[in-house]
């Protein structure tokens, strides 16, 4: 445990402040790697892309998942739907990306359907710098949907039926039941799912590496983890790559801390404990 987690972590902190090509001795570099990285336009690009992916994927994905979970909860027989919705989760991200590469071609049924609905020429998702990022978000939402639905469904089933019944007797309709009762009672689980989904969006790599072969046209889908991989294992610049890793870690911690700060305002705990 200490060897495989703590040692690499400490080493990545050391490397972030060092000059190293992987072969010769280390030398102290001070803040040079950080200065180099912060001046690197590709890092800025990666951070913006990564944040965009998180900001699109998390609310849209969780929003769909809540609605589907509420619909499923009403049914007695839902196994078939659950199996269909969950099947992308058991599929490796590589296969997901390879399959979607075909679906996002200009001449695929999906692109042609989109073209005919909006009366535009069929989009060529993966070659267009603007659409490529949206394609990455769509695929992320699709592949994590099942997991979120399962989690929310479990949460909904824990809400005591007497609460729903009481609200219904007080005259609450389906919509106010959803917004006033179910959603607030689901908020602790929502919060947890949001934190985890955000962290995993910040780590997006497999999709951009394969789906948009090496970060898309003109680095349109370059993410931070791709940036680290490219610097370290593509260009053998281990110092700057480690500096970028530390920046990723700081970003993750800050965003998580902000979410924990916001939870007091939005998350409702049934027993009053935080």
């Amino acid at each position, binding site marked *: 445990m200490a*060897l*495989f*987690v703590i*040692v*690499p*972590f400490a*080493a*990545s902190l050391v*490397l972030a402040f060092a000059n190293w090509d992987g072969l010769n001795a280390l030398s102290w570099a001070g803040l040079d790697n950080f200065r180099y990285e912060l001046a690197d336009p590709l890092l800025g690009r990666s951070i913006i892309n990564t944040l965009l992916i998180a900001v699109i994927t998390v609310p849209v994905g969780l929003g769909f998942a809540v609605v589907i979970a509420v*619909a*499923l909860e009403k*049914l007695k027989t839902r*196994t*078939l*739907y*659950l*199996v*269909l*919705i*969950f*099947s*992308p989760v*058991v*599929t*490796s*991200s*590589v*296969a997901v990306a*390879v*399959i*979607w*590469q*075909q*679906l996002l071609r200009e*001449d*695929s*049924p999906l692109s*042609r359907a989109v073209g005919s609905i909006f009366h535009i020429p069929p989009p060529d998702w993966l070659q267009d710098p603007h659409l490529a990022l949206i394609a990455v978000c769509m695929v992320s939402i*699709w592949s994590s949907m099942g997991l979120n639905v399962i*989690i929310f469904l479990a949460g909904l089933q824990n809400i005591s039926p007497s609460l729903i019944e009481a609200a219904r007797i007080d005259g609450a309709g389906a919509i106010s039941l959803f917004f006033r009762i179910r959603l607030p009672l689901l908020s602790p*689980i929502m919060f947890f*799912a949001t934190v*985890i989904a955000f962290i*995993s969006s*910040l*780590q997006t*790599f*497999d999709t951009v590496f*394969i789906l948009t072969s090496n970060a898309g046209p003109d680095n349109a889908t370059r993410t931070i*983890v791709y940036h*680290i*991989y490219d610097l*370290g*294992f593509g260009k053998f610049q*281990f110092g700057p790559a*480690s500096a970028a*890793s530390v920046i990723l*870690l700081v970003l*993750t911690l800050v965003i*998580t801390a902000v979410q924990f700060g916001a939870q007091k305002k939005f998350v409702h705990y049934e027993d009053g404990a935080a």
Partner: protein
Amino acid sequence: MTTERVGRAGEVSRRIVVHIVLSIVGLAMVFPFIWMLLTSLKTLPQQLNQPLDFWPSPATFQNYIDAWNDAPFAQAYFNSIYIAVLVVIGTLITAAMAGYGFARIKFRGSRVLFVVFLATQMIPTQVTLIPFYFLMAKLGWVDSHLSLIIPAALANPFAVFLMRQFVLSLPKELEEAAIVDGAGRWRIFWGVILPNLRPGLGALAVIVALSTWNNFLLPLVLLNSQGLFTVPLLLQSFSGQFGSINYGLIMAGSAVATIPMLIAFVIGQRRILNSMAASGLGGR
């Protein structure tokens, strides 16, 4: 009486609407797989027709034969299965022991150790990727399955946390009876704790197996020889090789890489879905 009848009819029609909407959602979720199968059955000339045909005609299994012959999928399956089995067994043992330790054995600094332990979970593997690679190189484990098995089996903070929670939920009386009988920690762990942890261990096994099977970044960085590739890594190199030429072949390869997992999921769906729900958010 009439209002009640209207209410019931409304309920039925609402349920039908829900079914229709969910059917559309379900179909949309599996459409990529359907398209994969349809494309995999098309001949090469048929993939070049403009506009693209929806149905394969004539349907051919030639792509599957070619994919199987062009890339060592059988070897990759063997690699993935034995890596996943060893990681699962290793993780279950170490996580159950460490979880038991954190839950029941109090010593000086045990709380601090646990918090440090949890904090390491906040560090994404991607952050430590580069030093981890050099550590593996120092140990001589690059281009060897050891680098994918040993660290994963020994150091999984999430698994330890999950096991600690399961141990905490066991009644203390279970152990107290054994202590009265004069059993030591070791015998309590194997004889009392482990058998009672079975549901938790089952859930953990499912999650660890899935995440090990689907891991891509670490095998990508650590393995070089094709004979050692896991299924996702082989699929990636296979699609890179033929990607822009023969889509049918690529989709046949994808089907070979995904269909067995999907079948396994359908067979074990009850257990897998319950595990995922029980342990909340662990599977990623």
